[in-house]
């Protein structure tokens, strides 16, 4: 095994994912429409009722649309992570996952390549969303658009790893819808995507605590701060640790001797 083999395999996996994505234009549009609806309709409606006080990284009073933008980028990545894992469950049912699993490379590397492939798609979506938001006058400092890239990669791999982990546990495609409801909605609504933490504390301490420890919140804060050229160390390490944890469990899940593959029957 040499390094070229690893590179070629990763290139092949990412290339296949990007090619599929390009071909499925509806998927691209759907992935953009969702956050845009939240931005143009939900946020515009809430603007009048919800005032956001000055809190880092913002230096002035901001419109609700500005506050919600990093959360919507997180939403793109959350949906993308779950979509990738859905496609893995589908691939497993359809058998194409087997081709990946029997190729002579370590399983963690194959899963990691799948993850990176998914993240590259979500980063592309996030930048297109940011470009549309820019025309809607949600503008960040120019360096923010650069600093956000590593943040997007980390949050993307963390959410993708969560998706992988779920896909290793899910036996059949039909079971996925339930999991989506139990994962996506609680994660999204119990986070700092739509409202700041301090605002939540006013209504419920429990909700505040849940949102604080929700890794999705920390991923959003990492994105939010980096978009304004700042580094949120706590959010960075929290997201990183969550990624390592999710990825480790996912790799164990896909390990033939320890994992859940054995419990999936004769697939």
């Amino acid at each position, binding site marked *: 095994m040499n390094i*070229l083999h690893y590179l070629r395999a990763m290139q092949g996996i990412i290339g296949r994912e990007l090619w599929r994505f390009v071909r499925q234009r509806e998927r691209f549009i759907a992935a953009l429409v969702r956050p845009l609806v939240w931005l143009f309709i939900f946020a515009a409606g809430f603007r009048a009722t919800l005032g956001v006080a000055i809190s880092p990284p913002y230096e002035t009073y901001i419109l609700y649309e500005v506050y919600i933008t990093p959360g919507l980028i997180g939403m793109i990545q959350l949906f993308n992570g779950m979509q990738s894992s859905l496609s893995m469950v589908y691939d497993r049912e359809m058998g194409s996952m087997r081709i990946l699993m029997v190729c*002579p490379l370590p399983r963690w590397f194959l899963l990691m390549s799948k993850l990176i492939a998914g993240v590259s798609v979500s980063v592309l979506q996030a930048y297109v969303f940011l470009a549309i938001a820019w025309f809607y006058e949600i503008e960040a400092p120019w360096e923010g658009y650069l600093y956000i890239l590593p943040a997007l990669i980390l949050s993307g791999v963390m959410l993708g790893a969560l998706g992988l982990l779920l896909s290793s546990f899910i036996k059949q495609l039909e079971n996925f819808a339930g999991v989506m409801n139990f994962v996506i909605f609680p994660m999204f609504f119990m986070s700092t995507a739509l409202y700041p933490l301090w605002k939540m504390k006013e209504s419920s301490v429990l909700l505040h605590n849940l949102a604080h420890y929700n890794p999705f919140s920390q991923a959003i804060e990492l994105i939010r701060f980096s978009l304004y050229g700042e580094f949120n160390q706590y959010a960075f390490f929290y997201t990183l640790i969550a990624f390592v944890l999710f990825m480790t469990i996912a790799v164990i899940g896909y390990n033939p001797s320890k994992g859940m593959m054995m419990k999936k029957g004769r697939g």
Partner: protein
Amino acid sequence: MSRQKIQTTALSIENLSFSYSGKKALEQVDFTVKSSECTILLGPNGAGKSTLFSLITRLYDSREGKITLCGFDVKQQTQQALSKLGVVFQQTTLDMDLTVLQNLRYHTALHGLSGKLAKQRIQEELERLNMYDRRGEKIRQLNGGHRRRVEIARALLHKPSLLLLDEPTVGLDIPSRQSIVEHLHQLAIEQDLAILWATHLIDEIHPQDQIVVLHQGKIKQKGTLNEVIQATNTHSINEAFQQITERRKG
């Protein structure tokens, strides 16, 4: 004049057992597959053929027994072992919306073949199966027989020593089946390839093939076609197979 070939052991399975939630799916399975030979794994549905394939390809792992592929322990030296293996699964594993070429390129990338070598191998394998002219077509546009050909071509791109076939002709019409059966037998001889072929279709067996009869997770008979017929005191493999599988049912 026949040329004597030196045969090597491509696959060795020793005392392999496997259970699904306490129920034995395979028990003390023991056999070898040699180069230049087709070994037919014969067994009715549910005999344990697919489980055995999942263990060889390390989709599952067994605590009991040992699988060695070209001298590499599948459990300890997984990657070296898998690099020697080509597989055609029972269920199609091609991406329907990609072209023949794109599907094959994905496989060569996974096996680390350079662009130039991949191109050359793809051409070779597709030409052998008369599919080169159709390389630009999407898999969805191909019929079942042609899809199978593409899968066989794909499994051979990295020049494996052992080819695993899990009921590759299921659902195909008779001419497609015959053509694939002939092609694979020819391939074993021409390329010194070891083939392990799971099937329950007796007419796919050639007289020179090795046979392993698997039933209810256990090996009931193994040997050449004649040896199996003699051991069961029957006149044909069909009768032998029926006798083995029926006798053990009760």
